């Protein structure tokens, strides 16, 4: 199927591309400016003679005794425990739903699908009240535990598993006398690669970008993830006598998004095929 390329169509699509990329370019360019330079130079071009990127990065990492690095470590903790755990639970349950028939299966399906429609933020206040009774608020657990559930990930793993693992292979392993978990780890998991990467990547984004949940759960800035920290730096400018650090907010924002952009770019092949498989059964 060879099609003639169209310049007009390419230019029209380039409009959407420019819309998506220009704000990111703005962020990169402005991360190279000093605080006064932000106000005195044109937004989409560099400030002549003042290339302050390295200086801004150094300041971002050391400001307020290096709290940014602490926030980065917290974010990594929430992502590894939250997104890692969420992926593990979704892969396990997706396999169970796709490859077994068990009493209550319809109930599981109905409950989980119903829960997808419940606004996550509607759960936040009661979850906060529950967790505060259990003494979990203002601890990492209050952010990690709710991140462990991803109904979308479960749905994706379920459809993916149904396609990727033939029943005959599992049956053969059973005939050979392998236990259910051994079969799952030895035979199931290796076949689920693209699906697992996709769910992992999307739950990583969800936890890395989480704002509302930590906002209500955490009071102590020492437990903040990057998103809350950046917002706190920005809000500082609005309070009387607060230190105005827009250059650090901008540089910190850039540092915050780089790891995820890199992950998406490097793992393209996996998540794109994972998503495509998930859409087969809609």
């Amino acid at each position, binding site marked *: *199927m060879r*099609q003639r390329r169209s310049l007009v*169509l*390419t230019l029209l*699509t*380039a409009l959407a*591309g420019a819309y*998506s*990329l220009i*704000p*990111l370019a*703005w962020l990169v360019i*402005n991360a190279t400016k000093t605080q006064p330079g932000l*106000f005195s130079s*044109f*937004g*989409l071009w560099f400030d002549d003679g003042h290339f302050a990127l390295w200086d801004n990065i150094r300041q971002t990492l050391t400001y307020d005794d290096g709290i940014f690095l602490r926030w980065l470590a917290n974010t990594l903790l929430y992502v590894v425990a939250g997104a890692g755990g969420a992926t593990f639970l979704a892969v*396990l*349950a997706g396999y169970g*739903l796709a*490859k*077994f*028939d*068990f009493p*209550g299966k319809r109930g599981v399906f109905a409950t*989980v699908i*119903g829960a997808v*429609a*419940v*606004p996550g*933020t*509607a*759960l936040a*206040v*009661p979850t906060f009240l*529950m967790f505060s009774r259990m003494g979990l608020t203002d601890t990492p657990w209050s952010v990690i*535990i709710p991140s*462990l*559930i991803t109904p979308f990930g479960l749905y994706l793993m379920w459809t993916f598993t149904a396609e990727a693992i033939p*029943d005959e292979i599992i049956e053969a392993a059973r005939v050979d006398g392998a236990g259910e*978990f051994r079969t799952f780890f030895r035979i199931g998991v290796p076949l689920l690669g693209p699906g697992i990467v996709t769910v992992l990547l999307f739950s990583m984004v969800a936890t890395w*970008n989480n*704002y509302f949940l930590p906002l*209500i759960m955490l009071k102590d800035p020492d437990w903040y993830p*990057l*998103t809350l920290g950046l*917002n706190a730096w*920005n*809000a500082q400018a*609005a309070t009387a006598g607060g230190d105005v650090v*827009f250059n650090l907010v901008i540089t910190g924002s850039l540092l*915050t998004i780089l790891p*995820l*952009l890199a992950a*998406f770019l490097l793992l*393209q092949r996996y998540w*794109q095929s994972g998503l495509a498989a998930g*859409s*087969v059964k*809609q």
Partner: protein
Amino acid sequence: MPAKRRRSWAGWQFVAPFMAVFALVFLAPIAYSVYLSLFRNRLIGGNAFVGLANYRQALADSQFWSALGRVSLFLVVQVPIMLVIALLVALAVDSGRLYGKSFFRVSIFLPYAVPAVVATLMWGFIYGARFGLIGNLNDALGVTLPDPLSPGLVLASIGNIVTWEFLGYNMLIFYSALRVVPSSLYESARIDGAGELRVIASIKLPALRGALVIATIFSVIGSFQLFNEPSILKSLAPNAITTYFTPNLYAYSLSFSGQQYNYSATVAIVMGVITMVIAYAVQLRGTRER
């Protein structure tokens, strides 16, 4: 569906861990908020059962209705614009007639990986008259453009941020659905002499139906849950964004600055029910003629 499979409890070994955590972070809070919504904390007499009084209060609450009206307006304007653009881009990328198609596919998707906090701060600065692009344009052209952060425009400005964040995500959902159309369908259409537009109308759009329903449901939920963007933009536009700007912002302010936990839970439940009803209606409508 696989053929005969023995029905046994073995499957629960795999599903139980998910369901246990699910019960803790989904089912228990839902039950707890229903419980909370039936009580009220009074200065005299403490915590008292009030039946449906909180719900009656919510239905007569003009701040709640104004918040709901705002997100409904957002829903009917922003969601169609975003989904139509996403659909057009997906069709363009899938057409095979673009130069550099993977570049477009990836770069339009990239904003999805940007946290709402960063996206909002970034756009908030760009909107700003002080060192943003709007300020630059004002200086360069000697004009005064309308302020995107003024009360009249701030909802549209938030709509732009949300569109920017989720355009590529929706495009990718549509694109993935188009990828699974067997190419033999296109070939036979071509043999029948069908043109590009005819192929789009009779093959591609029907194939996108399921993806469109899913994307619409996600967008309905997203619009009704609107919180992060207005909440963060509030520090840059304090006069334009009220504490009851969206239902979620209202529920949040009731809880965390008003200590009215019972009423806040009620507002959250009412919003949850409205969201579920609309999501369900979209699904029914979308799958009806299959």
